[in-house]
């Protein structure tokens, strides 16, 4: 059987459309902030996630993270606040290859108090950002790491 050039091209188009159709659901059902997570600069990560890189330092943002971490692979972090109308809590590690570590959506009725464990590639400033009432509030602390956490 001979396939004409035109037919062959048609087949290619059909094939690639089918592939696209198969791929789209995987990328579209997650509202994962890929641009912000893939950003390698802190400011880019801020802008992509929160729309701005300027935050107000506030003691209302309670960031609990150890000053010295023996193992950068699992550093416990807690962020909480008594502020009202909290929309989200995000954690940034300034000197990680990708600074944005995690972002949490806080719907109404959910308490603005979260804990998790993060990786630090090296000694770095950890920043917690809380979006409340459309404004950004932050609190930073330096964490000294004696062993890196990104398998370097």
């Amino acid at each position, binding site marked *: 059987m001979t396939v004409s050039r035109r037919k062959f091209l048609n087949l290619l188009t059909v094939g690639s459309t089918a592939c696209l159709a198969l791929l789209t659901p995987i990328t579209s059902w997650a509202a*994962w902030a890929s641009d912000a997570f893939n950003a390698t600069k802190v400011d880019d990560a801020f802008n992509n996630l929160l729309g701005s890189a300027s935050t107000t330092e506030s003691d209302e943002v309670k960031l609990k993270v150890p000053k010295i971490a023996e193992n950068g692979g699992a*550093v416990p972090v807690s962020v909480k606040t008594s502020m009202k109308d909290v929309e989200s809590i995000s954690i940034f590690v300034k000197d990680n*290859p990708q600074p944005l*570590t*995690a972002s949490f959506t806080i719907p109404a*009725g*959910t308490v603005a108090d*979260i804990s998790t*464990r993060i990786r630090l590639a090296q000694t770095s400033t950890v920043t917690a950002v809380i979006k409340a009432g459309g404004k950004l509030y932050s609190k930073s602390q330096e964490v000294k790491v004696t062993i890196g956490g990104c*398998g370097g």
Partner: protein
Amino acid sequence: MKVKAKVKNNITTVRVLAKHPMETGRRVNKETGEKIPAKYIQELTCEHDGNVVFVAQFGTSVSQNPYLAFSFEGGKKGDALQLRWNDNTGDVEKKEAKIK
């Protein structure tokens, strides 16, 4: 995924331990010299009574076997929570937990 949920004074506290390697994509297999492909949880959600009460988005710098604690108002003893995570390779794990 292990989930523990307890209610006290109308506040339900949920603790989650997801079993996941959280590969960053930057680690190198020492024997073959090849990069280990990235595999990490991107999103974890928790639903209670048809409402989403918590959404966590993760990047690669969340620790292996991610731990997460959060709390919300209005859960009752015996209520079911639906938790679900999906990773960058399309893997999904779902888990239902009862509030104690």
